[in-house]
Each structure stands twice: as structure tokens, then as C-alpha cells.
């Protein structure tokens, strides 16, 4: 006879929709949760709100047209798409791009990394309720967008890298402004630490939240900072170096216990790492004066010889790759975009959220930096 004292499980699950329009969801994405009061029993993703069928559209556009289309795949970090697509074309066609173009591309990638990580800090601040962190992070991110605007002419979609190098060389005085912004950012980041490091509320909310082990992570297709937070030093910039990363020396940032706080700290320390990399690149750029582009074709429609290549790089969300097939024509035959969120949201989130509190769902979703556009494509 069950002693009817404190009944904690009600076996009466409710269908709760953390649907497309919910402040706790990052981007236009949905989960259907089976919830017993505040404990999550089961989660299912509902993707597809941002599906524009990129892979179909790319087959209908020439190589150069696609470069205007692909930054729109992953909105928080568009330069990742540009680099991967162009690197795949260069690998199939066998073009070797000048070192200066490599350095400029690496500078753009690292700046995009810092702006994406600042956005990550902002979304985590919102999840925990520390709104000053959100406001400061977005405010300081704008300084980097101004630098992008000076370099590429646009704040978010830069369309700056094209097959064979970059569209324009670095304008006058831009490197000094970059140096100045980096110094300003370092000062501001100390303020962030004061707001978050010794705040008992944030520590209690994040430490020990949804911890994962390296084996569990690799089995569920977890890549990028989330994997490094579990303690294994796997960074594609070191393992499969691209652009100018083999010429830069940096230590792979790792944390130990793989919980939400470790994921937060990995990204926080990788901002410092990016700042240091940018400083090294500034020195290299000041000494190097090779041309910024090698363009073995004329006009805007060029053919890429028959072949296929897969290029993947280290984006802030995880492993971001382009697999390009070409049949020697003016249009790519088939382009496959490998977004990190396909495994993070589809496989990891549905498994790790079971048994967690509903109050933590938005934090877990934010701590893995789920970015729906690269799942929907």
C-alpha cells in the first residue's frame, strides 16, 4: 500500500512547447517537451522554421553568385561559410592563395570568433538574469562590427572572401584601429569577470549543470568549445590547420568537468586567445606585402574543374564544413553544408535535457550555443 505522503512523481506529463516564439529559445527553433510540473521527461526538436533550401539554390547559381548567398546560412558567424566554400573551390581547382590573403582571412575569422563569443556571453547573461552582461557584451560587440564595416563595407554579411583571396586589401590605419579596439576589449572583459566570476547566483546556477564526459560528447557528435570543455584538447585549428593557423603559435584552451560553467569559461578564455592571435597577425600583416588576391580567372563566371573536396573549420559553434562537388561547369553540382547544430540540437539536446529542470532548459540550450540556421540550412 503506497504511503500517500509526499508524492513527487505524478506520471501525468504535459506537452509544453518551447516553440518558435519563446524568449528562452535562441533563434527560430522549437522543442516539444513532455514535462511533469518542472521536470523534463522527454524532448523532441522541431526544426525547419529557417529552412530556405540553400543546397538547392546553390546548384542554380554560379560560383561567384553563391558567395553572396552563403553568409546567410549561419547568421551569428557568417565568415565561417565564406572561408569554407572558397577553400573548397581553391582545393578542387588547386589554386594557391598568397600569404597576405591567408593572413587577412585569418584576421576576419578571429574577429568573427570574438563577436560570436561576445554574443554567447550576452545570451548566457540573459539566461541567468544578469542583464548588464547582455547589454555590455552586445554594446562592445558593436566595436568589432564597426571594424568589419571599415574593412568589408558591411556590418554582418561581409561577402569579403572570394575564390582566390579577398576582395579588397586592408585600408589605411585599419590595423591601428584594430589594435586599439583589442586593448579596449581586454579592459572591458575584466569588468565582465567581476560581474560573473564571484557572483554566487551565477556560480550556483551554472556549476554542475548538464556535465558531459569526453566519450559521451564524441559519441553524440559534440564538437568545438563544448568538446574542449570536457577536457580533450581537440581544436581543428591545430589538428587540421587551415588559413594561416599553422604559422601562429597558440595553446588549445580546455576545461575539466564539461558542465555549463566549463563551457562558459572555455569560450571566455578563447576570447583572450583570439585577441592574442590577432596581435600576432597584425605583426605579420605589417611585415608582409604580397598581393591580397590570386585570381586565375576573368569575369564573374568561371568554371571549376571536375572534382570534390570537403573543408571543415573551427567555428564558435563547432565543426563547420562545406563538401563541394563540381562537374566542371559554371555552377556547383552539389554543395553540402555541415552545420554543428545538427548533432548538438538533434542528438545531444534531446538526450541530455531529460531529467533536468525546466528552469535550466534555456541555460543548457544556451550553454551549448545551439544556432538553428545551420541545422535548417
Amino acid at each position, binding site marked *: 500500500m503506497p504511503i500517500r505522503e509526499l508524492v513527487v512523481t505524478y506520471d501525468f506529463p504535459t506537452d509544453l512547447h518551447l516553440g518558435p516564439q519563446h524568449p528562452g529559445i535562441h533563434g527560430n527553433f522549437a522543442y516539444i517537451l513532455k514535462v511533469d510540473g518542472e521536470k523534463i521527461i522527454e524532448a523532441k526538436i522541431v526544426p525547419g522554421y529557417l529552412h530556405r533550401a540553400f543546397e538547392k539554390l546553390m546548384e542554380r547559381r554560379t560560383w561567384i553568385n553563391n558567395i553572396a548567398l552563403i553568409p546567410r546560412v549561419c547568421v551569428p558567424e557568417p565568415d565561417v561559410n565564406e572561408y569554407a566554400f572558397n577553400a573548397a573551390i581553391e582545393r578542387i581547382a588547386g589554386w594557391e592563395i598568397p600569404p597576405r590573403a591567408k593572413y587577412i582571412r585569418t584576421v576576419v575569422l578571429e574577429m568573427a570568433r570574438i563577436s560570436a563569443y561576445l554574443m554567447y556571453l550576452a545570451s548566457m547573461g540573459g539566461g541567468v538574469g544578469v542583464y548588464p552582461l547582455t547589454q*555590455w557584451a552586445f554594446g562592445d560587440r558593436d566595436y568589432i562590427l564597426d571594424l568589419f564595416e571599415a574593412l568589408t563595407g558591411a556590418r554582418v554579411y561581409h561577402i569579403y572572401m572570394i575564390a582566390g583571396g579577398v576582395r579588397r586589401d586592408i585600408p589605411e590605419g585599419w590595423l591601428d584601429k584594430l589594435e586599439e579596439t583589442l586593448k579596449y576589449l581586454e579592459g572591458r572583459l575584466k569588468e565582465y569577470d567581476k560581474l560573473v566570476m564571484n557572483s554566487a547566483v551565477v556560480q550556483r546556477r551554472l556549476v554542475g549543470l548538464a556535465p558531459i564526459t569526453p566519450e559521451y560528447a564524441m559519441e553524440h557528435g559534440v564538437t568545438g568549445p563544448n568538446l574542449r570543455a570536457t577536457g580533450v584538447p581537440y581544436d581543428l585549428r591545430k589538428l587540421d590547420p587551415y588559413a594561416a593557423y599553422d604559422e601562429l603559435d597558440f595553446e588549445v584552451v580546455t576545461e575539466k568537468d564539461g558542465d555549463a560553467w566549463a563551457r562558459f569559461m572555455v569560450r571566455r578564455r578563447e576570447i583572450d586567445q583570439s585577441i592574442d592571435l590577432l596581435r600576432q597577425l597584425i605583426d605579420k600583416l605589417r611585415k608582409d606585402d604580397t598581393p591580397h588576391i590570386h585570381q586565375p580567372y576573368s569575369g564573374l563566371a568561371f568554371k571549376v574543374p571536375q572534382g570534390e573536396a570537403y573543408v571543415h573549420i573551427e567555428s564558435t559553434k563547432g565543426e563547420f564544413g562545406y563538401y563541394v562537388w563540381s562537374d566542371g561547369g559554371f555552377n556547383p553540382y552539389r554543395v553540402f553544408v555541415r552545420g554543428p547544430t545538427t548533432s548538438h540540437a538533434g542528438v545531444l539536446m534531446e538526450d541530455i535535457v531529460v531529467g533536468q529542470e525546466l528552469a535550466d532548459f534555456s541555460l543548457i540550450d544556451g550553454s551549448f550555443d545551439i544556432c538553428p540556421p545551420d541545422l535548417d540550412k
Partner: protein
Amino acid sequence: MVEWLKLVDKARSRSIWMLMYCTGCGAMELPPAMTSRFDMERFGIMPMATPRQADVILVTGYVTKKTLKRIIYAYEQMPAPKWVVSHGSCPINGGVYWDSHATVNRLDLFLPVDLYVAGCMPRAEANMKMFTELMDMIAKGEARGWEEYVKNRDYYKENQRKLFGYDLVFTDGRSAL
């Protein structure tokens, strides 16, 4: 009784509450507008969590068929003086995704749009200009989109039925207890 006061339109223009729903890629330029650099809250504009509390719904960028159904549902849940603002060229003629089988190329066939903002993802400054423009329109009482939706409702519903293939009725009579 409160309705006829000129004060009400002024109040409505100075306190617009935006539905926190990032439907497309344009939503990336809203946080800078909300935060410390451009700070739309100084105009009284605040992002609100649910359609019941919101006055304006921003369709930021392209509209996929799946998202459009949710936008229409959120729009119909919003209380009366409500406005729709569409960002960029995608809701006008499909924009860069004109030939995609998943996106809807024209928004104003399904929802009365009050204001269009140029830019393939309008910049943060364009968003601020949009907010001030919307505030002036409301203050002068020109933003009448919601009356449009009420007046020729069957035109919009007919379009929606043609697009989705079934009637977009969100609540059948059975739940009117």
C-alpha cells in the same frame, strides 16, 4: 471614453512593445538596437515575451511557409491596435531566395504590413529609423494596418487558404465552453 483623447495616440507612439520573435536573419541587428549602443528603450520600446502583451510584430527578413503560419497565429493573438513591420527585401519579392520552394515571396498578401525597412538585413541605424518612423505614424494615427486586417478579413483568409491548402482557423468552436 478614453479613446478620443489625442493623448492616447501620443502614449501609444511613445510606448511600443515589440514581440520578442526573431523570425528571420534580420533579428541579428535587433539586439544592437536594444542594447547600450543604440538603446531603443529610450523611445519606450521594449521586447515583450508573449503576443498578448505586444503591439508590433517585426517580420525580420525572409518568411518560410512554416514560420508564416506561426506569425499569423501570433498576429491574431495580439490585442487590437497592432502593427506589422517587415525587414529587408525578402518579404517584398522573395529577395535573394526568390526561387526557393520553402520561402513565401510576398508577405503583404497574408498580413497587412504597415512599414517596410530597406536593407538585406537592415542595419541597426535602419532599425532605429524604422522605430522613429513607426512612432510618428502611430502618433499621427496613420498606422491603420490592423483595421485593414479586420475590414477585409476574408481576402487575407482566402490567400492564406490558397497558400496552405487548408483553412488557417486556429480555434474551432469545440473549445468555446
